[in-house]
């Protein structure tokens, strides 16, 4: 068998073997890959990065555990970025099964904030994240459209107390913070129709800068809002999360997943190219023989 035929008729088990080896190796190996960032996710990063310390970012964790794999990395990346920049955060969870998950995420994050880290060449000292000072977690209330509207009047209307039962007025960071006017921007990490409500009832009424983190499937539907300026930035799926992690120089779960994805895709592409090289060579040989 000539080389070109060998390239074309490789036993498919070699494909399998190489794919297994590459996936398992990249799963355990510790190295970084560059992620190509897109303007949609850059817009979110740059907006948050430009805020002065002490500003308030509103993060709505509006997804259920079934969208966990894609959306949780976004919450982690953005919240950690905010806290490293000494911004303050108001969290809500407007999806029924969200609050427990959001609470867990906040606790995990405050653990990781205790460590010293270097991001984009800037050294950040580890610090304690304090409830009521660095963040407020409002929790869950049904009828998300009304909650979004109510918060436009005053956060205290739908949420007299935070998730843990403390009245908002007794939390230091909520002093003088009434509604969206005191918030720099709203980031809705959403796995469903709540995103629509944030556009029409939130941004449409109160005009704050709105950013989205969405599942991969939903992304295409919301691009028109980006074009019309109602949404200022958007992250789509695991890829979007990885882009934010790349921008914030804070590699996490999304980049880990994308690392395996990228190498696995390359393996497949290389095999496709090998097959075509074989085809091309044998085609040329046949042409020569024909002459």
């Amino acid at each position, binding site marked *: 068998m000539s080389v070109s035929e060998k390239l*074309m008729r*490789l036993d*498919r088990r070699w*494909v*399998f073997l190489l*794919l*297994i080896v590459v*996936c398992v190796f990249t799963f355990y190996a510790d190295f970084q*890959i*560059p*992620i*190509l960032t*897109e303007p949609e996710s850059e817009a979110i990063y740059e907006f948050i990065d430009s805020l002065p310390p002490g500003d308030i970012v509103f993060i709505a964790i509006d997804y259920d555990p079934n969208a966990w794999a894609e959306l949780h990395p976004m919450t982690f990346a953005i919240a950690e970025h905010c806290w490293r920049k000494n911004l303050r955060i108001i969290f809500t969870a407007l999806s029924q099964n969200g609050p427990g998950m959001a609470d867990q995420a906040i606790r995990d994050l405050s653990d990781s904030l205790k460590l010293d880290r270097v991001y984009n060449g800037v050294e950040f000292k580890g610090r304690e994240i304090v409830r009521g000072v660095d963040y407020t977690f409002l929790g869950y209330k049904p009828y998300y459209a009304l909650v979004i509207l109510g918060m436009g009047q005053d956060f205290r209307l739908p949420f007299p107390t935070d998730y843990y039962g403390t009245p908002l007025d007794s939390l230091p960071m909520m002093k003088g913070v009434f509604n969206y006017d005191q918030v720099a921007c709203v980031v809705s990490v959403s796995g469903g129709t709540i995103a629509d409500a944030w556009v029409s009832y939130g941004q449409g009424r109160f005009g704050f800068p709105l950013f989205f983190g969405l599942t991969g499937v939903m992304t*295409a539907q919301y691009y028109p809002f980006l074009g019309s300026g109602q949404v200022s930035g958007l992250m789509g799926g695991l*890829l979007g999360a990885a882009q934010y992690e790349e921008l914030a120089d804070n590699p996490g779960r999304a980049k880990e997943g*994308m690392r395996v*994805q*990228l190498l*696995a*895709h*390359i*393996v*497949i*592409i290389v*095999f*496709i190219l*090998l*097959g*075509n090289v074989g*085809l*091309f060579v044998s085609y040329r040989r046949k042409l020569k023989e024909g002459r």
Partner: protein
Amino acid sequence: MKRQLPFVLVFIFGVFMVFQYFAPHEKSERIYEFFLDWIYIIGTFALALGIWSLFRVSVDKIKNHKEAWRYSYVTLAGLYLMIAFGFTQRVGEPWGWYFVWLLLSLVCLGSVMQARAATSTGQKKKYAAAALVALALAVVVALLDDAWAFYFYTAEGLENSMFRVFFDYILIPILATMFSLLAFFIASAAYRSFRARNVLASLLLVAALLVMMRFNPWIPGAEQVARASNWLMNVPNLAAQRAIVVGVGLGMVATALKVVLGIERGYMGKG
């Protein structure tokens, strides 16, 4: 009667359901829901036929020593155990003689299979006797043991810890792994078939390659590739889908019309 009545029934029910779609009235909706229940109920009754078929084919394999016949015991044991778990649950903490009962009833099932698979009458009788003894013992254990009970009418069986264990540690891993084999098959299929042999194959190849490279940072013009793949998904792919959907819709309606009107009878073996 044997041949014609089924087609008359298809016609009557079919025409009724077509017009039901246009009548939103409460009475029409109720009939619709009732008919939907029919479909579920008939389907569930038919499952008995399916299980019987599975049993027959397995016994046939054992009888004729077809390839991999020994594994048919595994199939039937798994089937029986799962059903048994689903209808039983312990009453208190201890399981009592539950596992003895399971073993006895498994022995009974195995003997019945052997009796069916046996070729000589003597063997048949021997296995039948064994099955009867095991059955009698199993019944005695079931009657005397109070640690567990049968639940047919209420769903306690779904809470049975053995039912859960079989679901979590046998069913889910195997099904998920079967699904994940696709990662490899998609690779081997791409390697084997994406060859630029002619124009159509080249188009398939180029579109797939572009989309697969949409997040690859190491190729020149990576940003344009990402945009191009997004465009491919939302423009040509959408057009292709829409063309197929309309065609399929007309094909479906035509087929269904032919069935309802009795023009096509091949589905009942007459065509």
